[in-house]
């Protein structure tokens, strides 16, 4: 028996771990390479840090390589990110040249041989030009429903050279002549961000953040980004507060190479004014325990995004037994079972109405929270993602 995977027996659905052992028997000895842009910061890195050792412990020769980029390169790929998600960005030919030259330099430095190579998002996508053997999959975590055409045209040239693409949701995909698979991302229930915490640990963390523990807390966790609509969250909170004494916490951990966050925070502080019940908390990238404590202390979790990737903060809050009021953006609605584990809303008013309803019905909140945790257990844990990756390796690397 293997300890790395056995740790998940208590948290995953019945029989899952034994099933994974048997599934791994079918792919033992095969090699699997994950490639992404950064080692730290962001949900992809969080999961890969755990997923790759789990694959290794199951007998798969799994590796995780990270692109070496320059500040200039990361500026370019951030612009590409915005453009691919539909925001106006000017990307010059010189910038695309910067991208291509960094890709070429990395292709020379990295060992790209494997039975299966999974390339995450746009930053390293161009490495496919240097593929040698194996099955190459492009794993897109972004919502590509309405990209800016020049950026997508540039990226699409690379994507077409893959054997298949994987999206988190059908609605995130563009038309492509290669097979398109659909796989939800996942959370790690044993990571610092999601593991169980003692009452004293939580109390200590919340007190350190200066939050009133006796007042109901509406919590939105997410990067300080206009797409997350923190301003809409403040508007909804103000509508709720007319009837109910409560507080709003907007908490975000920084992602490396994110130059816009500071400007958004400044505007948020201005919007909050002198309201002491609005807490805007900027956390460092490694503040996983603080986020964990905040989610466990929240009364209701809110995700008011107007544009979103998959939005795994929703599953994180649900895993902690919290009902989530979320918009229909990105993958939020795919995680919430409307009316069962939380509510899907479409407006500021809708968010306020549902939050108020929940705050007035503690029994309903508890029931929804319990269902939310079970829903995540079955659909959004890393053990399910491990199963998906092993299945891909078996079905595609031999075909």
């Amino acid at each position, binding site marked *: 028996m293997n300890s790395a995977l056995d740790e998940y027996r208590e948290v995953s*659905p*019945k*029989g*899952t771990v*034994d*099933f994974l052992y*048997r*599934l791994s028997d*079918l792919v033992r000895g095969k090699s699997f390479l994950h490639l992404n842009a950064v080692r730290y910061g962001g949900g992809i890195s969080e999961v890969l840090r755990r997923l790759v050792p789990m694959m290794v412990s199951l007998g798969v020769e799994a590796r995780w390589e990270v692109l070496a980029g320059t500040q200039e390169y990361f500026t370019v790929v951030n612009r590409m990110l915005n453009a691919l998600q539909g925001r106006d960005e000017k990307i010059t030919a010189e910038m695309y040249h910067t991208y291509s030259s960094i890709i070429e330099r990395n292709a020379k430095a990295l060992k790209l041989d494997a039975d299966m190579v999974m390339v995450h998002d746009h930053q390293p996508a161009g490495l496919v030009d240097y593929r040698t053997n194996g099955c190459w999959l492009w794993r897109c975590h972004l919502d590509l429903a309405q990209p800016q055409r020049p950026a997508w045209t540039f990226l699409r040239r690379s994507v077409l050279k893959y054997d298949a693409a994987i*999206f988190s949701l*059908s*609605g995130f*995909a563009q*038309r492509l002549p290669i*097979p*398109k*698979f*659909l*796989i939800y991302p996942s959370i790690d229930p044993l990571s610092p961000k999601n593991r169980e915490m003692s009452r004293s640990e939580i109390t200590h963390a919340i007190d350190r953040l200066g939050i009133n523990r006796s007042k109901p807390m509406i919590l939105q966790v997410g990067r300080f980004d206009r797409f997350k609509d923190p301003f809409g969250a403040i508007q909804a909170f103000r509508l709720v507060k007319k009837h109910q004494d409560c507080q709003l916490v907007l908490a975000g951990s920084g992602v490396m190479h994110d130059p816009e966050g500071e400007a958004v925070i400044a505007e948020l502080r201005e919007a909050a004014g002198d309201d002491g019940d609005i807490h805007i908390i900027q956390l460092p990238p490694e503040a996983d325990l603080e986020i964990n404590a905040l989610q466990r202390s929240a009364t209701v979790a809110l995700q008011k995004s107007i544009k979103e990737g998959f939005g795994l903060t929703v599953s994180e809050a649900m895993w902690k037994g919290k009902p989530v009021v979320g918009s*229909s953006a990105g993958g939020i*609605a795919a995680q919430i*079972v*409307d009316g*069962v*584990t939380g509510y899907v809303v*479409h407006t500021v008013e809708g968010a306020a109405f549902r939050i108020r309803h929940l705050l007035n019905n503690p029994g309903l909140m508890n029931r929804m929270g319990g*269902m939310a945790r*079970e*829903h995540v*257990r*079955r*659909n959004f844990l890393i053990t399910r993602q491990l*199963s*998906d990756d*092993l*299945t*891909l390796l*078996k*079905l595609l690397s031999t075909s």
Partner: protein
Amino acid sequence: MKGYPSVTNIADAPFAFIGCSELQESIARQADDEKELAELIEEVPLDSIHFHTHSYFLRHGLIEGAYPNDFAQWVVMQVGDHVLGERLAILDPFDYPNLEHLREEIISIIDDHLSRSPIIPRVVFGQPFHFKRSRILEVPIGLEARTLQEFRDMVTDIDVSTIYYHMFEAHFRLRREENDFSAWIRSSLGLLKLADCIRSINPYQGSLERLRSKLITACDEFLAGDSAKV
């Protein structure tokens, strides 16, 4: 051992449990209104009909009370058409001998609904219906039962995908006459009444966990000698 209805029967051929892992694949077809939905249901591969009416159970292991197939779920949650949603929700795939008949019935229900509606209900604020299909990987889970007691104990702890595979995949996709559990109990253990009982369990009513409970209950009642109930 056939013909001897005893719980101590030992099967010559053991029951080998098989789990499954599903990969969802987009087939690049989407409907924005109910007429398009019916037209596309008519043209998509049967695999896709199977996906939206069967593997739904594999993906929603917990939540009961939600609509029991993707078509009903979509017209209610995204289009807001509760009337069609209710008519599609009551549809029971167990009543149809194969997927082609099930497809015809779904189209017929939607066409009938549209013929009585002055408008074609469509998505306004919600998401379109994305057609998908799945690729299923069979995974032998290394458990084999030779007696009813062993079978019952193993069903208690197996991953739900194993129950899905033997109850749903066996019957519809692999076109076996009955589910794998009842077939083995009938042919290898010779427990005909229990086999009939398990064959008659409708897998479409409730979650996979509920199905697990029904299987265990049927075995327990038989093992306790309460054959009147089975």
